């Protein structure tokens, strides 16, 4: 009993409970079809695999967003940075920019990641050095980022690899980012695991995690203890921008095109929501990357299952918001207390 209680106090406990119940509900609604796995050509297919593959972007973003929120800030530019990253990569593969590279997918990926680092560093500069409020600082790229992406693609949707006559380069390496499999599992999951472990290592094996939490709780006191608050913030926004560029690569590889208007549109809200649903505080302080990833999975599974149940996409957004409210209430300590005291009162009466 003591063990269960301690377990339930862990931040990740309730998000996991919610995630598992969503999966179970889906299983009941589909009479078990939800849990079916098929192996085709040594690759796993199934609804759960879909959720993981489609949720890859969100999980990646949630890792960066968790850190930004933990310092008491936020990064609302991630969707636009995704668009920039996709635009850079696809335009290079397409030979539209830097034709001298010959459409090398590997170089294209490197350049897209560099663009993400640069965007993140810009955000970090505005927040840490210029001391702008994070929401305003990152709003600049939120708005301007899509314009920059349009400039890179010259205002077109850059599709890659459809017509070998126009685009002689085989972009299959690029497709692999979203569609590839390793050991039967989708490649986006590998990317998530890689960055999750990297972030975990960096926050737990160095003092970075402690410094981030300390800054999130009390930034003034942290700088009095000698923590380089500005540097930590700069690193975090740079990291968040980098994560966004990774997500942008997954997205554009999935649709085999860079669509500057729609890539990652409004996904920053889902990323913030993923952290909140994972039980993280938006006011800064304690954070758990694992919980945020579960939060991202919850959001993705809600979206996927609503669509699978035949809810039209427009209505699905409303349904999703209702589900999110319910999830947040279910995790709220004071709400649970209020409910249980209501029940107790009812029992007495």
């Amino acid at each position, binding site marked *: 009993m003591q063990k269960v209680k301690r377990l339930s106090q862990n931040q990740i406990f309730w998000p996991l409970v919610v995630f598992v119940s969503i999966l179970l509900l889906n299983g009941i609604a589909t009479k078990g079809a939800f849990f079916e796995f098929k192996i085709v050509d040594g690759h796993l297919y199934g609804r759960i695999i879909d959720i993981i593959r489609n949720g890859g972007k969100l999980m990646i973003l949630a890792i960066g967003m968790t850190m930004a929120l933990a310092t008491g800030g936020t990064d609302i530019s991630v969707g636009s940075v995704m668009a920039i990253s996709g635009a850079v990569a696809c335009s290079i593969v397409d030979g539209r920019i830097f034709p001298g590279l010959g459409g090398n997918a590997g170089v294209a990926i490197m350049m897209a990641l560099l663009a993400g680092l640069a965007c993140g560093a810009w955000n970090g500069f505005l927040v840490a050095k210029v001391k702008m409020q994070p929401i305003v600082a990152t709003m600049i790229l939120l708005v301007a980022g899509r314009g920059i992406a349009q400039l890179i693609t010259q205002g077109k949707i850059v599709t890659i690899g459809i017509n070998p006559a126009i685009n002689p380069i085989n972009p299959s390496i690029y497709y692999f980012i979203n569609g590839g499999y390793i050991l039967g599992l989708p490649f986006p999951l590998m990317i998530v695991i890689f960055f999750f472990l990297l972030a975990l290592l960096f926050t737990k*094996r*160095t*003092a*970075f995690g*402690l*410094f981030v*939490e*300390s800054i999130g*709780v*009390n930034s*003034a*006191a*942290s*700088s*009095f*203890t*000698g*923590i*380089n608050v500005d540097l930590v913030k700069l690193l975090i926004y740079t990291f968040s921008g980098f994560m966004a560029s990774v997500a942008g690569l997954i997205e554009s590889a999935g649709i085999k095109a860079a669509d500057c208007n729609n890539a990652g549109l409004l996904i920053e809200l889902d990323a913030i929501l993923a952290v909140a649903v994972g039980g993280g505080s938006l006011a800064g*302080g*304690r954070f758990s990357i694992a919980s945020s990833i579960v939060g991202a999975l919850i959001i993705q599974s809600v979206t996927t299952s609503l669509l699978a149940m035949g809810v039209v996409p427009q209505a699905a957004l409303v349904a999703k918001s209702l589900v999110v409210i319910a999830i947040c209430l279910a995790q709220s300590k004071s709400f649970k207390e209020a409910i249980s005291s209501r029940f107790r009162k009812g029992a007495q009466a």
Partner: protein
Amino acid sequence: MPNAEPVITMRGVKKSFPGAMALKGVDFTLQKGEIHALLGENGAGKSTLIKILTGVYERDQGEILLDGTPIHPRNPQDAQKIGISCVHQEINLCPNLTVAENIFIGREPMKFGAIDWKTVNKKSYEIMKGFGLDIDVTKTADSYSAAIQQMVVIARATEISAKVLVLDEPTSSLTAVEAKKLFDTMRALKEKGAGIIFVTHFLDQVYEVSDSITILRGGEYVGTYKASELPKIELVAKMIGKEYKELDEANVRSGKAVSGEPFLSVEDASSSEISDVSLVARKEEVLGLSGLLGSGRTEIARMIFGVDPALSGTIKVKGQKVKIKSALSAMRLGMAFCPEERKKEGIIGDLSIRENIVLALQAKRGIFHLVPRAEAERLADLYIEKLAIKTPSREQSIKNLSGGNQQKAIVARWLAANPELLILDEPTRGIDIGAKAELQKLVITLAGGGMAIIFISSEIDEMLRCCQRMVVLRDKSIAGELDGDISESRIMSFIAGGADSAKS
């Protein structure tokens, strides 16, 4: 006061907060046409008394009479309606609105269902002229200096109700010239028959404008005096709670005269907040920075620790010239600084005691040299025991501790970083007597163990107990240094303003 006619009479006012008695039965009488200074140290109860008068707090006991009728203001608006206005330290204007809009905000004269701007501007101009200010009232408030803005606040307050005006530290954001202007305004209002309560920590200003002085100490009423009949040094003595005669007797502290080598020496250093500081902190010695609140003690500490880095002058550590640009560089030179505002600048509330204690050491070592969990636990346990921090476990959030225990944990944080110079700014403020004594003992023990300590406190008793040498500050500059022959009367004569007041 010949035709004394009280406008406010407070009798036996009591107020307690959870865990503390803020006012223990205070009497206070304000006459019409009088500027009455309300003085006392930090925590003496001045602001509580004012907040009761202006309806921010409700009193527990006692009565307040306005023109002989009992009153019970429930909120500041209530108080304003019956004629009591308060002007706070921070200038409380909407900077983006015009002066006229600020004066009439919330009670604009109407005409045909719309605001009558003509009257607003015309009346505002007349009001400001009445204060001797011929200004364009249609310009925004922030286009004027702090003094004029403060005057606009006072004009608004007196426009609403002119019977009683409370000025709470009104000059703290003003320059000396601006303050003079404000005093003229105060005198003009006095002529009109208003009663003014003046709260300030600038003693010179008290004597410049006040007719009478009421002193509070530790929530108790000490007395009311005519300003002309109370010498400054006696005033300070009453604020601090020592009879003047008692002070004047050579109350020399028999501090041990030993001091180690100089660890830190500051020569003619200036930061953005304070200028021309020279002092030396030695090993095995507690150096006190004495002076009233706002006299520049904290500013010196912040300069030394690189929070407001020195812009000119020389700072030497162990004889080596150094540049201290940030807290981290000060720490790397072996310094530590417990700031004054424990909640804002000290504790990291949501983190555990262990994390709070290890934080400075971790920052000193750098991001990539994580203090291992076992070492952190050992350090936390060590200091919890050594400083007798009362907590169920080292994993407790520090915000759940009492003030004294929080302070001990912050001191532990710095001791864990193993400093050679420890700067303590008001380490015992707001903590209970027991923890206070323990901290004082700790300071003396640490100095005995070879550490250099700079100790800042508003409590003279505490300073005398702990310090071997003392630098006294007044109005953001060093008024003098006391070595060996430290006595309360000498400190106070420096605080009060040099040799001339010491004579009286």
